[in-house]
Each structure stands twice: as C-alpha cells, then as structure tokens.
C-alpha cells in the first residue's frame, strides 16, 4: 500500500518497541539504533508489499529480526558486553541494588541461544501472541512455545540456582527440573 500519513504515523509509533527489541537482541544501544534505522529504510522502500490491515508491528519486527540475523552472521556477536554497557544506554539508571540485579539479568539473557532469546522477548516483553512470534521468526507455533519454555528454564537456572556457572547450563537446568519432582 502507498505510504499514507496514517501509515507513517503507525510506523513512527512502532519505533519505541522496535528499539527495545533491537537493544534486547543486540545488547548494544548504538548498534540497536542502526538496526532500527535500517529497518525503517527497508520498510519504507518496501511499503508496497505491506498488506493493509495486517499487523504492522509484526511486519516491522520481522524486517528488524532478519536484518539482525544477517548482520549477526557477519559479526558473530563481536560486541559481547558483560560489563553492562547496555545499562548505559538507559536514561533512567536503576537504583544501586536493583542495578546489580538488572545487570545480572541482562548477562543471563545474553547467555541464551539467540533463538530462545528472541522468542522470549517477543512473547514475554513485546507482547506478541505465540502465533505472531512464530510468523516473525518464520517457524511453527510449537517451536516458539518450546523455545520460550527453554529460555525461561535456563534463565531461572542461571539466575536463581547457586553456582550455575560451575555446573554449566545443562547441569543446572537438569537440577532445576529434577528438583521439580517431575
């Protein structure tokens, strides 16, 4: 469809969540904004292929995710950021205690496999349905569900089980599941 004023407004309205998604994926504020910029350019250049009435945020997220993927393959996550540069991209710094917990959370999120991280963010933070998330990631709904479950299990193992790093993720996941009394 042509780029109408209202479509343009809708695209603009999606920018904040596109940024949040990009930062969650890349863990790097500057790179995230470049990703968003490229996503917008791509979207505007291909606006004719957008189906009126379909889910615009999902369409934009799909573009961003694909860009991130192809970029990722090139870079292999050269920007590992355990120091918490991510936190510096935030305007509101969490209070001291919360800050630590926050960085811990961020670091744990970074340890997830990419598939699981993006599924968890789409469903758990962006608020997409499993169906939309599946469309965005180009996979089956069941695949998204299992990725989200695995992501949650792994995060809880990393964050809330003592000595997670000593055992390695697989051991701790098993410990958590085993502790669950099956």
């Amino acid at each position: 469809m042509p780029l109408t004023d209202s479509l343009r407004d809708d695209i603009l309205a999606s920018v904040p969540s596109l940024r949040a998604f990009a930062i969650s994926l890349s863990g790097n504020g500057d790179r995230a904004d470049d990703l968003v910029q490229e996503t917008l350019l791509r979207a505007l250049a291909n606006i004719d292929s957008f189906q009126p009435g379909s889910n615009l945020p999902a369409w934009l997220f799909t573009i961003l995710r694909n860009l991130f993927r192809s970029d990722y393959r090139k870079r292999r996550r050269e920007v590992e950021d355990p120091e918490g540069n991510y936190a510096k991209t935030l305007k509101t710094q969490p209070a001291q205690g919360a800050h630590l917990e926050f960085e811990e959370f961020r670091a744990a999120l970074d340890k997830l496999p990419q598939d699981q991280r993006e599924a968890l963010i789409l469903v758990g933070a962006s608020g997409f349905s499993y169906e939309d998330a599946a469309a965005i990631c180009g996979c089956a709904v069941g695949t998204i569900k299992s990725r989200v479950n695995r992501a949650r299990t792994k995060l809880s193992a990393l964050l809330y089980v003592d000595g997670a790093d000593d055992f390695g993720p697989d051991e701790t996941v098993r410990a958590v599941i085993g502790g669950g009394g099956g």
Partner: protein
Amino acid sequence: MKDVKSQASKTAAPGKPGRLNAEIQSRIGHQLRAMYDDVVRQGVPDRFAELIRKLDVPSSDPQLGPTGAPAAPAIKNDGRD
C-alpha cells in the same frame, strides 16, 4: 546434607519446587518487561522522526514507481540539518 540445605535456602522454599518455579518465572517476566519498557518509555528519538519525515515519498527509486497518481508534492527536506 548441609550443602543441600544452604543451596535450598538460596533458591527459596525447599519442598515446594512447583511454587518456587512459578515465583521465579514471574520474577523473570517482570525483569524482562522492566528492561524492555525502560527503552520503550524513551519514545521516538528525533533521528527517527526526521528520517521518516524525510522519506515521506520514496520518489527517488523508479522501481517503486507509484501505482497511481503520486502523492501530494513532497515536502522535500533535501538538506540534512
């Protein structure tokens, strides 16, 4: 035995793993949204608002030629402030 106990106290409620798990999951969900919403609340940086305004009409690309009449004459901001 002691080890198990000290670990259990760190991970909370021993003997109630189901509940513990639900509690942890809700904490994770909360942290995830807090992290995300913090960025969302920053709104639209000027950089992007301007980008979209500038690219109002994708007139430069013949591949994307308009299907009908071109939109109202573009308010073109060629200069990048």
